[in-house]
């Protein structure tokens, strides 16, 4: 390579790809998302055979293969069933920008449901300050900002006055 080309200006072009699309929620998810958006409530669906309450609601119970049709209002509070502390940034696909670590991410079983919701947990990234069994509540966007998808849930936050049972 010639000396001249060693000093060549190298061109780089930043590209932002923004892909808009519509997600057709379907019969049961429409009801779930509209209740979340309009009333800030969570609804699950109970299987008539095994009685488990699924969240998000599905038309057919994946275990019993029967049609679910009993809607159940769930609490906005639940119990942390698993969590992880993330030390690497995770890209938010809606902005393309990273969430800054450290972050706590976990599964919460809302009272009345048998399945979990996974989301960020708004708690200090300290494994002494978050534990399985911790009581959580959902924090939603203000009603006028809700759009009817799961990003309407900002995060979970712990209920006040809890003490780590192992400490």
């Amino acid at each position: 390579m010639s000396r001249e080309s060693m000093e060549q200006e190298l061109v780089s072009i930043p590209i932002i790809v923004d892909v808009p699309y519509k997600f057709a929620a379907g019969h049961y998810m429409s009801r779930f998302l509209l209740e979340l958006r309009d009333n800030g409530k969570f609804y699950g669906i109970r299987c008539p055979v095994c009685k488990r309450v699924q969240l998000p609601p599905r038309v057919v119970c994946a275990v019993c293969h029967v049609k679910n049709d009993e809607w159940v209002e769930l609490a906005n509070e639940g119990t942390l069933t698993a969590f992880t502390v993330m030390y690497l940034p995770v890209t938010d696909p809606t902005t393309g920008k990273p969430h800054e670590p450290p972050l706590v991410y976990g599964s919460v079983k809302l009272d009345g449901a048998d399945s979990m919701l996974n989301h960020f947990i708004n708690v200090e990234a300290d494994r002494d300050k978050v534990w399985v069994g911790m009581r959580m509540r959902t924090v939603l966007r203000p009603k006028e900002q809700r759009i009817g998808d799961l990003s309407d849930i900002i995060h979970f936050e712990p209920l006040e006055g809890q003490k780590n049972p192992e400490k």
Partner: protein
Amino acid sequence: MAEDKIYGPFEVDQHITAHSIYYAGKMGSRFYTTLRDEQKILGVRCEKCNKVYWPPRTTCGRCFSQLSEDDLVEIGPTGTLETYTLVTYTEPVHPRKAPFIYGIIKLDGADTGMAHFIDEVDYTQLHVGMRMQPVFAEERKANILDIAYFKPA
């Protein structure tokens, strides 16, 4: 919840955003800086295949010969319209709002075409084989929009 409440079908507006950087590389950078600074369009010749490619690249796609900056040749700026289409609907991923015309122009001296906008012409007046010329942007930033568009020569 009232049992008779009607829930209509619901479509949720979503979008995915991805940030990336296109690195033009050795040959691509030479192409873009020459376009910006001299308003000249470069292609690359493979001696073995006797083909001139645009955009310039370091490997011949036919015979895999290594190509270098010594193989860069000026092409165009005029060329011949190979094909074209009128875009009549607006999509968020398009760089412009409809209506606009996309064409592929084979620049004089090149063996491959360049896709770009075609302006300053009525769509019905276009025809394959038409002679075209580029209009360079006033303010050039070393990207492909340094050629603002092509128009009939």
